[in-house]
């Protein structure tokens, strides 16, 4: 057991998989000699050498395409897109190429790759370097989408993503890189498509992702201590595949559902979960499902402005408390 930052967990996760499988290769902008702009790949170049850890030009389409061509022909590439906002300049690969090649070829072509990216707000970078874009990817059949909230999940889910035979979008939250958590020694391999109940509770289910997970946990402690409301916190972790059974099971117990989403409101992942629960567990509910999201706006840069638009523990507490009428 050791305490590790989320950032160092990324390094350990990549190193674990590169050590295990010589077909795992890694490419991206400033990732090799410089160790990445978030310092989340420091030391990999030194450990695995210039053939396996490669700096690229500022060419997001080339990075994505090269990862795909390598994956189709037998490698297991990990590619980094520095900021997830940049998905927009190489979205063809995310929307049209990775996820459709297997289907269109009637199963002839495979695409086992992982795209890692710095996602999410909190760094005061403004509207083009702060977005939570997991929804952009979630809506595309053929992709898998993962967003870990803790160091141990970073390693385990990254390993699962690398070993997965499908293309996986791996969203690392920029505001979590410096956070710490206990991580067991030895190899860690998790499973995609599994949510985690981080805090059991009986009064309300709160589903959250990435940076919203620690905020939901903090809110749950306050709700319990100050209002006697006992919340069950579910870290969704994997949007595709989606572990609906864990969520439905929890709602059957608590009879209330809240989602905490960093994304702008429209078409957020929480809407899909709410719709599934409404379809399949309507009579378990004692009140309307409630989505707590960032408003439908581009993100402002200034710290005081960014802080008020993202869901906070305070907003989660207020929303849950009011909805439960206490």
């Amino acid at each position: 057991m050791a305490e590790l930052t989320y950032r160092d967990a990324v390094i350990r996760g990549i190193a674990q998989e590169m050590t295990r499988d010589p077909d795992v290769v890694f490419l991206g902008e400033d990732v090799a000699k410089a160790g990445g702009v978030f310092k989340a790949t420091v030391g990999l170049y030194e450990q695995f050498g210039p053939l396996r850890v490669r700096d690229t030009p500022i060419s997001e389409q080339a990075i994505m395409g090269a990862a795909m061509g390598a994956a189709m022909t037998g490698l297991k590439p990990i590619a980094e897109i520095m900021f997830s906002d940049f998905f927009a300049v190489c979205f063809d690969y995310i929307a049209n190429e990775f996820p459709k090649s297997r289907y269109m070829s009637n199963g002839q072509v495979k695409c086992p790759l992982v795209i890692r990216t710095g996602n999410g707000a909190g760094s005061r970078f403004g509207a083009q370097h702060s977005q939570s874009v997991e929804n952009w990817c979630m809506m595309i059949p053929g992709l898998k989408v993962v967003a870990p909230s803790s160091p141990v999940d970073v390693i385990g889910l990254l390993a699962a993503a690398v070993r997965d035979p499908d293309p996986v979008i791996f969203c690392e939250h920029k505001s979590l890189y410096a956070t710490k958590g206990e991580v067991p020694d030895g190899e860690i391999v998790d499973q995609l498509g599994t949510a985690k109940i981080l805090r059991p509770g009986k009064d309300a289910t709160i589903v959250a992702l990435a940076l919203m997970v620690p905020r939901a946990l903090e809110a749950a402690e306050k709700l319990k201590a100050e209002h006697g409301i006992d919340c069950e916190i579910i870290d969704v972790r994997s949007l595709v595949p989606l572990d609906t059974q864990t969520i439905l099971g929890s709602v059957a117990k608590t009879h209330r559902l809240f989602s905490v989403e960093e994304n702008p409101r429209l078409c957020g992942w929480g809407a899909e979960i709410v719709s599934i629960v409404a379809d399949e567990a309507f009579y378990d509910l004692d009140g309307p499902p409630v989505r707590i999201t960032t408003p439908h706006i581009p993100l402002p840069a200034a710290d005081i402005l960014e802080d008020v638009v993202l869901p906070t523990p305070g907003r989660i507490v207020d929303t849950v408390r009011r909805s439960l009428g206490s």
Partner: protein
Amino acid sequence: MATIKDRASVPAGSGLNDDIGEAKRLELYRTQVVLREAEQRAYDLFLQNLVKGTSHLSLGQEAVAAGFAGAMQKGDLSFCTYRGHAHTLARGVPVEKVLGELMQRDNGLMRGKGGSMHLTSVEHGVMGSYAIIGAHLPIACGAAWRAQYKGAKDVSVCFFGDGTTNIGAFHEALNFAAVWKLPVIFVCENNLYMEYTPISEVTAVEHPAADRAASYGLERIVVDGNDADAVYRIAQTAFTKARAGKGPSLIECMTYRHSGHSRADPAKYRPEGELERWKLRDPIKIYRERLLQFGVAETVIKGIDNEVRKIVDDATEACKAAPNPPFDIITTDVYADGGWAWRN
């Protein structure tokens, strides 16, 4: 009528057993005839409403596909565009499989799940046909990177049109391949038009691919794309370079499509006489004439024509008789487990 003397790339006095040789010449001829007959048939079937969706023919551009395929070795990889029937057939994919896909039958190459724009046959090295302009140039780089990393000797060849040279992915891929010295060959088929607009109206240089080569430290190469021998020779040079670890090539092949851009296009935008002038330089006509001049008997040429015609006829009948794809494949192969489940 074009004669052998028009073809500057053929050294004066060279005979059938020159650097190319009789067997390869007959192969290059046969490949071109297969492409011509199969695509002409696709057009006829479209008029009968038996080819569904869209289709982009390479009629008139056969020499490029034949010349490159003739220079490829087993294991080399082709990356094509929506105008990819010719390149797919040239790698030896059966005509029936291609026509079946165009007719969206169960005997099609991808059982109707891909359609005419996405022909793929991994066992023949056809790693896909891509319908988003430029997308496959970086993908070909990735396949070439794998070969470089693994120390494999295969080469990735990426075919695309003149219009593709103005999209960002073209430039990203060229620079990437040059910097990483990847074993990839970029083949621009300059047929003078994008969909309907002449490439010259929207491009700052005369040769949309070759005139950009210098930006990526590559040689400027323009070749007569209607002469299969010329294409074959330049292809061999590029393969030798790639296999020797000396990096990518960018080759611009000058050619012309006889049909419209896609099946619905009557090509009214062509200046009068342009098509007729290019038809005088029809690659198959040129090649047939060359074979005759090199002393190949007319009966041998006719024999090839008849043999190919029969293959295409038989394939047509097989496709007409083939069933539609079954509904159960709608949800297969979305994910690697064979299914489409996104939740538990």
